[in-house]
């Protein structure tokens, strides 16, 4: 492939601009997945969720206080700071 062609491909797949409607697509995705979870409960009442129902017992007795909800948020914040540092430093 010629140099011009490869530069065009890079330009096309870079996706430098962020259209506002992309967040609508993301929100639609989240709503759709929640809807399917609800649908699973309606179609198969009393049946446990695959994978999720096997993973949750592992955390019994660990996250048994409301503080973990907040600490997970703080951990997300710490990872956001580390992520910001890494992405900003390597984005150039």
């Amino acid at each position, binding site marked *: 492939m010629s140099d011009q062609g490869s530069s065009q491909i890079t330009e096309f797949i870079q996706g430098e601009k962020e259209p506002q409607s992309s967040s609508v697509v993301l929100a639609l995705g989240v709503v759709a997945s929640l809807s399917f979870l609800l649908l699973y409960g309606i179609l198969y009442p009393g049946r446990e969720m695959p994978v999720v129902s096997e993973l949750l017992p592992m955390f019994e*007795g*660990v*996250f*048994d*206080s*409301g*503080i*973990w909800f*907040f*600490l997970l*948020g*703080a951990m997300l*914040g*710490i990872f*956001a*700071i580390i992520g*910001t*540092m890494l992405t*900003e*430093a390597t*984005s150039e």
Partner: protein
Amino acid sequence: MSEIIPTLAIFWLLMVVSFILMKRGLSIFNDVAKGMVMFMLEKALGPAIDFVQGKPGSASRTWIMHGMIWAMLASILTFAGLWLSHDSTALHSLGAWGYSPDSHELMYAGRFAALFGAVGMMVIGAGLHVVPTLSGTNLASESNATLVSGLWTLSVLILVIGAHAKEILGVDIIVLGTALQILAMTAIILNQLLTISNATRPIAIPGWLIIFGLIGNPLAVVSVFLSGAYGTGVGQWLVYHMIGGTFFFCGIAGVSLYASSMGSGNPLWSRTLVGFTLFGALISINPMGSTDPSMAVDMLGLEASEISSSTQDHISGSFLMALAMIPVIAYSSNLLVTLRGTDAFVENADSPGIAEMNMGAWMLIPIAIGSLFVQTDALGGAGELSGISQTLDLLSLWAVLMPLSLGTALYVFPQVSGRKVLSVSRSRAAFWLMSGGAVAGLTFTIMADLNDMALIESLAENPSSITEELRILGSVTFYGTVLGSIFHCTNLISGQFRGEKLSEEVESSTSLSPHTYELTSSTSVRRILASGATLDTEVIPVSQSEEAGSATEL
């Protein structure tokens, strides 16, 4: 026997001697001392000094960045401590990893992280920019100041660990952390003293506030040891409050007065009030802080003693704490009026730290008055108000010291890094989260404390459910502080890479207006503004000669 007045007399004497030495120097030993200090700060460190950059502003930037990260960690530790005060087994699952903290340990660790990590590092970092700027020179050793920021952070980390386990493998962890901190503090003091020795103009009083704040810390400790009061409860209480009044109060006052003036574009409202702030802070006892001096006791490796003050100590201590209201009110009013200038509107979109400084100055007076009552009660041995002491200490930390140091850091950071924070609106959101979380959360906790005190006084057998509900509400509301500090951190870090450049702003603002305006004769401000000058235009008086001119030679 009186402990307070002899200790303070030694402290005042040491301060006066220090000031005379700083003004007059060491006579014929001046050059030798300067050369030796410079050698110790740079060459004596060997290859270690080559690990860091010596670019102007790099030291201040590093200290402030570390301080911001410590602010976030401190808020998380304090939040967890507040939560565990009503749900003591909330973190029991961490016991599987050998970590089973209780509320007291987390709060203690949070206080170390907030005081020495966040507030201390942001104040020292801002001071590393402010003192050279006011002296009209560069920092003596940027490399050394940058390097010791790592040492200071390490010392705070050790102190936070020591708050959980005071002794590990027979080593007193808190004393080890203090020793490292003394080493870093000595380097910073020498660096700043060397900087002001190269001053090209008289240093404004905010600069002296920073310098006295730095040297006041070790001198307070030396005074207590020289007077022999270190073994008594009153002496330990006194050294705790002397460090609070010098290093924290003077340091914050110095950097925030500078930032309030430069950030708002208004000159300092009153020079006399700055002088009163400095003089008053040094001669009085700052009442803010806990009634329990265990932090100072642990850091100095002393045996804790009960506070049993003599009548003379009670009277002199109460009087000197009441006297501290003079510098507190002088500083607060000076800062608030300076922020406003001739305008009632405080918000400045270009200086996001102004909102924090405004809030800290507002909260200072009521919290200082509240602390005065609590401390006077504790010094007298009554202890009737000791139930709210810890929460009031947290309130002074998170509603006064933290906003004032954070606000200053938010102004200074763009000046030293050359870039603004990424988003002013995110800064504003972080301010509301931090201030709202701290004030509301800790107010709910104080309400719970007061409820507990009332129940104890009435000899009630069953605890009230409303106390627990208030503590839950307080800890959940305090979570806003955690979110605010995370927002501030990400905003500052992203701003370093993508924030608007300060130089670009200057260029754009001056493209349509003159940089300078030459003033040849008296004129009105209206005429200067009409010529296209802005508030940033420098007005330069040009001298004129009355001598007769002659023809221009071609």
